[in-house]
């Protein structure tokens, strides 16, 4: 079932695939944090009763987020080919895959940020409004620090979702571990590669979860 000498000969391929997965997840994560974090904050502070209450903005962005989130990833992947081609010049490879991964992860992470912010006691926000703080100060010194731990947990969740999505992206030329699993494990009935990739993904996800959780705990001062 598991052919160890064969596994050793395949190690360079597995390693290359793993690096590709890390690259596409890394890029997608970075972009989803850079765009998703402000978007999540915006969704929160434009909500009813908050200092930038604005139904119009809230509804527009809320709609856009829901729209992207309601499209199955495999369809989004294909639908975004023109955009990917425009941005990266190709639709093949991990960099190309990171475009659609980012588009999928941004709204996901934004919603996680929004719900982290919603968990903050409204009274704490109110108290800082009463102090006379500017909205910017409240975002920077109250909302983000108070939600820091749960946002870290949100990043962990996003990475784990990205791992799953990246496997899908692999099937249509994105490369990475998912690609390897499909090409060898599925098409060629190569159990050794199938088992190796599954084990790698399990270990990878467990590690991310563990590190994320530990870090989230260590920075929480409550």
């Amino acid at each position, binding site marked *: 079932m598991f052919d160890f000498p064969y596994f050793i000969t395949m190690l360079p391929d597995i390693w290359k695939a793993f690096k590709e997965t890390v690259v596409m997840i890394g890029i997608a994560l970075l972009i989803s944090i850079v765009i998703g974090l402000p978007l999540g904050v915006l969704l929160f502070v434009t909500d009813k009763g908050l200092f930038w209450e604005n139904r119009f903005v809230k509804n527009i962005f809320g709609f856009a987020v829901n729209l992207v989130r309601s499209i199955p990833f495999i369809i989004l992947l294909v639908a975004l080919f023109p955009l990917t081609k425009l941005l990266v010049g190709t639709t093949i490879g991990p960099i190309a895959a990171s475009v659609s991964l980012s588009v999928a992860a941004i709204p996901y992470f934004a919603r996680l940020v929004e719900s982290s912010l919603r968990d903050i*006691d409204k*009274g*704490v926000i*109110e*108290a*800082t*409004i*009463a*102090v*006379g*703080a*500017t909205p910017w*100060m409240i975002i920077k*010194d*109250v909302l983000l*620090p*108070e939600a*820091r731990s749960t946002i870290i947990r949100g990043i962990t969740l996003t990475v784990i979702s990205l791992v799953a999505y990246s496997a899908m992206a692999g099937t249509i030329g994105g490369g990475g571990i998912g690609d390897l699993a499909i090409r060898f494990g599925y098409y060629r009935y190569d159990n050794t590669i199938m088992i190796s990739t599954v084990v790698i993904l399990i270990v990878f996800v467990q590690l991310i979860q563990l590190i994320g959780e530990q870090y989230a705990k260590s920075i*929480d*001062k*409550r």
Partner: protein
Amino acid sequence: MLEFQNITKIYESKNKQVVGVDNVSIKINRGDIFGIVGYSGAGKSSLLRCVNLLERPTSGKVLVDDIDLTQLSSSALRKARLKIGMIFQHFYLISQKTVGENIAFALRAADTPKKDIDGRVKELLEMVGLTDKKDVFPGQLSGGQKQRVGIARALANNPSILLCDEATSALDPKTTLSILKLLKKINEKLGITIVLITHEMDVVKEICNRMAIMQDGQVIEEGEVYDIFAQPNKPLTKEFINSVVSFEIPKDILANVKGQVIKLLFKGDVAGEGVISDTIQQFDVKGNFLHGIIEYIQERPLGIFIMELQGEKAVVDEAKKYMEQRGALVEVVQHV
């Protein structure tokens, strides 16, 4: 000076309107410690939150030193809020920032120069008695200590008004007392006007000089705490005062009383016992104490005695008249 002019706050929910505050007008003088008392839902919290416009009144004006806050732009309102401190029942400190950072936050809101912040934080911590807690996170503090941090934060920018939203309701009696003492000290030392809302009459008795009682969104009674304690007019006011100064006399005892039961009230320096013993010596009546207490409110004594007077009706009436002449307030509780 802080003045509410015809404040009304209506909450709109799906298919009904709820009147939270109903046409309230109150004037609070500089340096007052003003207590607003009422059961939950009476509108006192809504009214308090109208001072710094955490809630906007549906109609009416909030005047702070003759400036109508409801007319200010959002940036002007933010500046005005720097001068109105507020503390809360649940403290509401930033849990991920140290005590020092929490206080510094308020100072930064007022654009305090960076170099002055450390010194001012130290000063404020000294004032509230927490000098050694600067680098501690709020989660490691007791309730009383958290409230002290809340007070330090509220006072950071030298406000002229301090709002206390049930500030001691989450604290045990001993801690409550220490927080009240601190508030009193701040009031005396810095001349800050304090407006507090509470459902605990003890709090009002302890530190307030003036008070208002709210019911169903309206102020039903307002005045000097001493006067209201001496002569509450409304049933609700009496109920609240009874929670602190109770004159329940067991039914069995009242049933066995032969004479007239009267309640005597001596305000300030009228020496109650002296008046009573003089009366009993001068008139042909027998006196019998059923209840009595001397309360000190704002350090002024308030004597309240319930006694039975036995004798000829005409003599008893004359005795009552005599006591009234000597400054007592006489109220008949039960006729023969």
